[in-house]
C-alpha cells in the first residue's frame, strides 16, 4: 500500500502511514484521467505539426521560397 508522510503543524509530530483504500482509489482515478487528457493533448499537437508540414510542402510545390513561406506564417 502506498504511504503518506504527515506532519502535524501544531505538535511537529511526523508519521508515515499507509494510505487508505479510498485515497488509493482516488489517486488511481486522478492518474487515469490525467493520462487520457495528456494523450489527447499530444495527439492534437502531432496533428497540428503534420498539418503545418503538409501546408509547407504544398506551398513549396507552388514555387514559394522558404522565406516567403515563413513570411506567410509570421
Amino acid at each position: 500500500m502506498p504511504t503518506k508522510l504527515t506532519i502535524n503543524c501544531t505538535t511537529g509530530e511526523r508519521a508515515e502511514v499507509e494510505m487508505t483504500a479510498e485515497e488509493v482509489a482516488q489517486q488511481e482515478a486522478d492518474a487515469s484521467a490525467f493520462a487520457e487528457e495528456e494523450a489527447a493533448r499530444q495527439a492534437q499537437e502531432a496533428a497540428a505539426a503534420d498539418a503545418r508540414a503538409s501546408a509547407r510542402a504544398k506551398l513549396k510545390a507552388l514555387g514559394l521560397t522558404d522565406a516567403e513561406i515563413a513570411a506567410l506564417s509570421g
Partner: protein
Amino acid sequence: MATHNLIQTVTVGAGGAASVEFTSIPQTYTDLLVLYSLRGSQAQVYTQATLTFNASSTGYYWKMLQGTGTSIGNQAVTNGSSIGGFNGTGSSATANTFGNLRLYIPNYASSQFKSCSINDVLETNASTTYMALVAAVWNNTNAITTITITGANNWVQHSSASLYGIKNT
C-alpha cells in the same frame, strides 16, 4: 509589513512517499504559502500531482494553462475531486533534478470559499518540459486545516515541502 513564518518543513526519506500532508495547520495567519521541491517516480518527464484540502474529495474548480516548450495547453475542471493540472518532475527527467512548485492560499481561515494559485516549473535538460499555472477554488466554507499533495507515483527521496504562514505584523 507582511512576514513569512516557517511553520513546518519536511523532506521525503529513502522509501519515498505517495503523499505529503500538513495537518493541524494553525489558524493564526492570514495566508498560507507552500513551496515544494518534487520529483516523482512516474516514467515521464513529469509526475502528475493533485491537491486536496481537509481530506475533502468534492467541490474543486480549477483552470490550468500549460507550456511544454513545444506546445501550449489548457484544461478546466468543474466540481472535481481534487485540484490537478500541475506536476513535479518525473523519472525520465535529468537525474537529480526536482520541480519547483508554489502554492498560495489567501484567507485560508475565512468562512468564504477558498481560492488558491499554483505555479510549477519542471527541471530537465531536454527540449520538452512542463510549466503550468493553475487557478483554483474550493467551494467550501470551512477553514483549511490540512493540505495534501499526492503524486501519481511516489515522491522520491529528497523531495521537500515547506509551509509558511503569512501575516501583517
